[in-house]
């Protein structure tokens, strides 16, 4: 009777220790990756190559999703707003929704699925095939050579992608609202311009996407670096990257929104 009880208690404790240990490892890991700033001559080409694979190659999915999300916003907004005879407000609705919320959040979710998972799998496979440990043998710091460029590439790419997402989405909303449903174009833009503030709305959106950039890249590279070096371990690390990134982005988004727009 007492035996299973203590077993259960022990497994609870083990879970707690593992969680705290992994949090601590990820913190130390982030610190070491950040401290290992790549030297300009060697590091810059590595960074460029990573921005290419993380940012430029994610452009297609981001542009297409942005276009369709903007078009859907335009269409939904029109049906609701036309009940109140204020279709002109569609411009400000589409722009504020995209710039404040959907731009940073949806881009971060897409980024976690498209780029984060591939970063994890790549680093995990490097670990499983002992490329990381052979780098260490040759006196090359894998954190500086492999992890830091990937982390910084994610941090730089995500805000750029988010801004492009917002612009494409607003264009999609205009396409549906103005070209298709016939909202007056002048009112569309002037309502948008009077409602959107550069500092409060656009820059806060950019700050959000910077935070998401740190979180998504951090989770992706850490899960790859910390994975169990087997095929099952890599697959579960990839899954964890997508799940943890999505949850962290949505949770942090609420906190950031409350701080930025909640009026505290």
């Amino acid at each position, binding site marked *: 009777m007492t035996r299973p009880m203590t077993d259960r208690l022990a497994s609870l404790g083990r879970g707690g220790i593992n969680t705290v240990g992994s949090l601590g490892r990820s913190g130390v890991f982030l610190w070491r990756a950040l401290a290992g700033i790549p030297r300009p001559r060697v590091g810059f080409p590595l960074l460029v190559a990573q921005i*290419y694979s993380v940012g430029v190659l994610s452009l297609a999915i981001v542009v297409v999703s942005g276009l369709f999300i903007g078009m859907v916003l335009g269409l939904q907004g029109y049906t609701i707003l036309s009940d109140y005879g204020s279709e002109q407000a569609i411009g400000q609705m589409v722009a504020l929704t995209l710039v404040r919320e959907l731009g940073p959040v949806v881009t971060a979710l897409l980024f976690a699925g498209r780029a984060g998972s591939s970063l994890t799998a790549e680093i995990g496979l490097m670990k499983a095939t002992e490329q990381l440990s052979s780098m260490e043998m040759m006196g090359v710091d894998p954190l500086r050579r492999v992890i830091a460029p990937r982390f910084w590439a994610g941090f730089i790419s995500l805000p750029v992608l988010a801004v492009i997402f917002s612009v494409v989405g607003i264009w999609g909303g205009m396409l549906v609202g103005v070209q298709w449903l016939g909202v007056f174009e002048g009112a569309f833009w002037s309502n948008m311009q009077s409602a959107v503030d*550069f500092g409060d709305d656009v820059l806060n959106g950019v700050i959000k996407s910077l935070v998401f950039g740190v979180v998504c890249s951090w989770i992706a590279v850490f899960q790859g670096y910390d994975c169990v070096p087997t095929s099952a371990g890599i697959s579960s690390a990839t899954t964890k990257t997508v799940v943890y990134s999505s949850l962290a982005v949505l949770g942090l988004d609420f906190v950031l929104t409350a701080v930025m727009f909640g009026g505290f």
Partner: protein
Amino acid sequence: MTQRTSEITVGLFMVAGFAALLMLALQVSGLSLKPTSDTYTVYADFNDAGSLSPRGKVAMAGVSVGRIRDISLNQKTFQARVAIEIESKYDGIPADSSAVIRTSGLLGDQYIDISVGADEASLADGDSFFETQSAMNLERLITNFASGR
């Protein structure tokens, strides 16, 4: 993919990002690059400023001629003192014009409308409106009517 090609695409990617941010600034949030120094300030004292707010519209005959800079309480007369920035090109507003608070549409925002006077002299920087008309307060109107005053 050679090093050079990927560098060029990354460069294009960054340029596209900055162009998108510029587009958000200029087209979406209506940020203006030209300096806003070419204005002069006049004041209007209202008994009730209603829901006027800074950056609000100031119009003449329906055309926007300036905007509200600041609203404060005059401690001596207990009136709302509204500082209005008017664009310098509209420099011939007669000195006996009056400032009226109006509502755009039935439920829209309140703005200041300048009703033109007939004076030869014009309003200059630092002048106050001689005559003002406060916001129409529907609740107060109904109360006054109901209590028979």
